[in-house]
């Protein structure tokens, strides 16, 4: 009888204390961390995103884990970091995929675990979802800004080159298409005489642009679709001794290219509002966690950065890089 009473009490203790603890262990609350996985952690483009993420996260009592690929195995590194965020049951994931298709599966795994995911940058082919939203720059507007600047530089007629078309780079072909459409509409007599596919490095782009400049000596302007291609094209123009003669407009911002804008070797950059995008991404995560509806797609308007406006306070604020949460 004594033993029986003790056993009953033991089972009661298990039922009251241990089982809820075990169940709680199985369904732990999310870690209050937003994992941000850019395609590159050091370019000013992404550091601005980090600044926006950190600022908005701090407002919401969250912290940001910031890491991304730093070598050729970019896709696998992004997958590994996303898997870790899923395993840690992070509050949300903000991902800027390096490739348009390779990240679909891991994003779906995160969604299956009900972790809000925000794709920051050109969208994946996945459909928006209560926990999946897209935040990006306005690609159409980017192409229009580039076409407008090229038109202003070249005039109503002339030859230009388009550098960095890469179907495997998210947003690349869309941006090229938007540029061509806008240019055809705005300055139909400005001809794109060279369309160079994206390469793996600035060095390869430099070689390709050098050849294009030899083949088409009348090229008056180049529009480069990403940072490495802009760097490569700038190197080629400089190498060909045609600084100032061949104008270069590039997509996105980096500190070295903004320095080249100051020096005049790059005419203009289409600057994305990455800071605001970072803030919006955290707002989307918080709203999704709260069960509120989130806009499937948020577009942010880019602006043209030139030597004339680079020192304006508005531009400096747009490209501010202070990622400290208290900033």
């Amino acid at each position, binding site marked *: *009888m*004594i*033993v029986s*009473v*003790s056993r009953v*009490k033991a089972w009661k203790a298990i039922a009251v204390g241990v089982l809820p603890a075990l169940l709680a262990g199985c369904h732990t609350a999310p870690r209050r961390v937003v994992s941000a996985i850019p395609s590159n*952690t*050091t370019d*000013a483009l992404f*550091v601005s995103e*980090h600044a926006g993420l950190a600022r908005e996260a701090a407002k919401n009592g969250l912290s940001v*884990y*910031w*890491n*991304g690929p*730093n*070598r*050729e*195995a970019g896709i696998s*590194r992004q997958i590994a970091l996303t898997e870790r965020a899923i395993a840690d049951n992070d509050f949300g994931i903000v991902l800027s995929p390096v490739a348009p298709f390779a990240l679909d599966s891991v994003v779906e795994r995160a969604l299956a675990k009900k972790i809000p995911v925000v794709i920051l940058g050109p969208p994946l082919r996945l459909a928006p979802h209560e926990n999946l939203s897209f935040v990006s720059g306005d690609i159409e507007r980017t192409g229009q800004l580039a076409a407008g600047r090229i038109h202003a530089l070249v005039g109503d007629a002339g030859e230009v080159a388009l550098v960095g078309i890469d179907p495997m780079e998210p947003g690349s072909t869309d941006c090229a298409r938007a540029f061509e459409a806008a240019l055809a509409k705005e300055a139909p007599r400005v001809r794109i005489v060279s369309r160079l596919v994206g390469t*793996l*490095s*600035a*060095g*390869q782009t*430099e*070689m390709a642009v*050098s*050849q294009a400049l*030899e083949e088409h000596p009348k090229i008056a302007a180049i529009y480069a679709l990403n940072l490495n291609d802009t760097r490569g094209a700038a*190197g080629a123009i400089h*190498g060909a001794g045609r600084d100032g003669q061949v104008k270069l407009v590039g997509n996105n911002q980096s*500190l070295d290219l*903004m*320095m080249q804008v*100051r020096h005049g070797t790059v005419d203009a950059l289409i600057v994305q509002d990455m800071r605001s995008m970072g803030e919006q991404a955290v707002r989307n995560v918080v709203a999704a966690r709260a069960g509120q509806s989130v806009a499937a797609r948020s577009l942010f308007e880019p602006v043209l950065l030139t030597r004339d406006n*680079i*020192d304006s306070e508005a531009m*400096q604020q747009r*490209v*501010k*890089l*202070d*990622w*400290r949460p208290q*900033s």
Partner: protein
Amino acid sequence: MNRRKLATVGAITLCVAAVVFAWRWWRDRDTLPYRDSFAKNEAAEWVAYGGQWQIRSGTVVNRSNEDGAKLVTGSRAWRDYELDADLKLIGREGNVGVIARVSDEEMGTDSYNGYYVGLRSGDSAFVVGRADHGWLGGRPTLMRGGVRAGVWYRLRVLVVGCRLAAEATNLTTGETSDLSFEEQGCPARGRIGLRSIGVGGAWKSVQVIPAGEAQWRAIASRAAFTTHPMYPIREDDYNHMLEALQQQGLKSGIAPVPRNEPMPVGKVTSIASAKASATSTEEVVFRGVVTLTSPLYIQDETGGVEVRAPHAPELNLGDEVQVEGAIMPDGASAYLQANSLRVLGERTPVSPIAVTSSQAADGSFDGRLVQLSGTLRAKSTDGDAITLRLADAEETFLAVEHGVLSPGPVDAWTPGSQLRVRGICRVGHGKEQSGAAFTILVRATDDVDVLRGPPWWAPHLIARYILVLLGLVGLSVYLYVRAERDKMRAILGERERLAHEMHDTLAQSFAGVGFHLQGVRNSLRTGSLALPAVLEKLDVACRMVTRTHREASAEIAALHPGTSDGADLLTALERSTHAMVDESLPAMKLVREGTARGVSPAVRDAFFQVGRESIANILRHSSATEIVLRLRYEPRSLELEVSDNGCGFRYDERAEDFGIRGMRRRMERVHGSLRIESEPGRGTRVAARASYGTARFTGRLRKRRV
């Protein structure tokens, strides 16, 4: 749980805590000074985070130009110290240095918490800053004489409190530069590491020694200014600062880093087509990307080839090169005997192609960077090289890595594991070991991933299971023996108690009866007593026997009361009372207050004995007409109160008689208390109180004993 067990558990807990503490202390102990063993080609204590690290000729080299490859060692407890290292930059433009006070390190560009101090070739800057999964640098200082690839520099970095000072010396020219850095709130302690950004690097003579204010001041006082984490926050500030630095460099006569030579447009041969006609003596020109530095392999879009270039510059993986030379046959394959090699660019990533073992074996991917998986059959070590023998359903092949830095990751590759290896596929060179279709030249330990551990039936795992099983059996036997010993101890204790009880009660009573009968016998023998007196004495003896019998019955009743709950405790006391006397009893009132709960057998016995003794005292001395037994269940304790309306007595705690002292001892044994209140003419109240006790173990013992 009794005190002895509590003490045992406490001692074990303390021992475990002490062992854990000692282990953590040993792991994080202040082991300064530290000096590397690179001269002996040993770097087992270093851990790589990214990069392609190897150790050769007393130097640790990273041949990768990825951003922020790190190699970390040391203790997390290192606080104020001086870190010295010789280093050089491999590649055209980038940044090499050391990291201090490192924690939270992982793969990624700025993925650590700590300080970086390094030399940047692009603008000949001596840089410093703080990383915490992000980067904020201080204002850099110009490195006197510039920063050049291939030149050895010595860095001395001192971290004291939240201040850092560093000195860089060009070991060729002796020119030095100094910097000083401070921040509010800093990582107080941490490890050290080597790091390169965008280029490869080489390091040697790394040492860490304790440092203090004086050493810090000696360097900081030479610095032109003290800087703080401030760049880049605003683009304009940052780029103006860089521009000023470049101007300062130009004024100091430091030439900018030369651009890569313009590539001469000439006839470039594809590697695949040249290898296909390897018998031709014609000169060929290849343009490709370096995929392995030792031996040197390059790859273009069509294929890869080994390049033997006696006077090649130091190269990194990802460098774009143009090579001219003659293609020479080598077994079924070929290599390029280079006459010239020029670097065209850097940082061109090459991703490995996933192939099957049969595809790799047919030679289509000879010289190319590939990735494939297999089951590890065996591994062997020869100097700084490790050879893995792998197999899948189709082929057996080798994976070879030279210059292995640390055996740690290699130890995790156990036979039977499924591995994925990346490296240069080498086939048809006639140098493969027997039974291997091809060889994968692995670039670094990072190029081997463990996909799956060995199957459960692997011999070493079976041996491990057996050891664990034996350990569990041993532990079970120990626990069983321990439990049996405890049980025996409890039984012996109980027997001893019973012996004392019987000695104090039954033996004394029987002795009394014996003495009485002896007296009757002596009287009868001497004829000193008349028959009526003898009969009276015999009546007394009979009454004594009857009383002794009752006492024995009561003791037996106390030994098997049947249950442990309070209701039965009261019933048992009532039954015991009836067993004490034949004649009419005072009225008995049994009262139970509160919700009945289980009571440990030891506590219950104590209450029963105290209650019985109290009732016996009432019957003997009080002339009471009513006895009240009250059992009160309280949240944490149980109270038994025995009261009567008898004559009472003047109670003096300092002069308790033997019976009361016995009751008090019983209660003390179960960590309880006893309270007695009595006044002449106002009855007596005895209250015993104790906690409920643990029923489980003692209950089990009692059950077995019964």
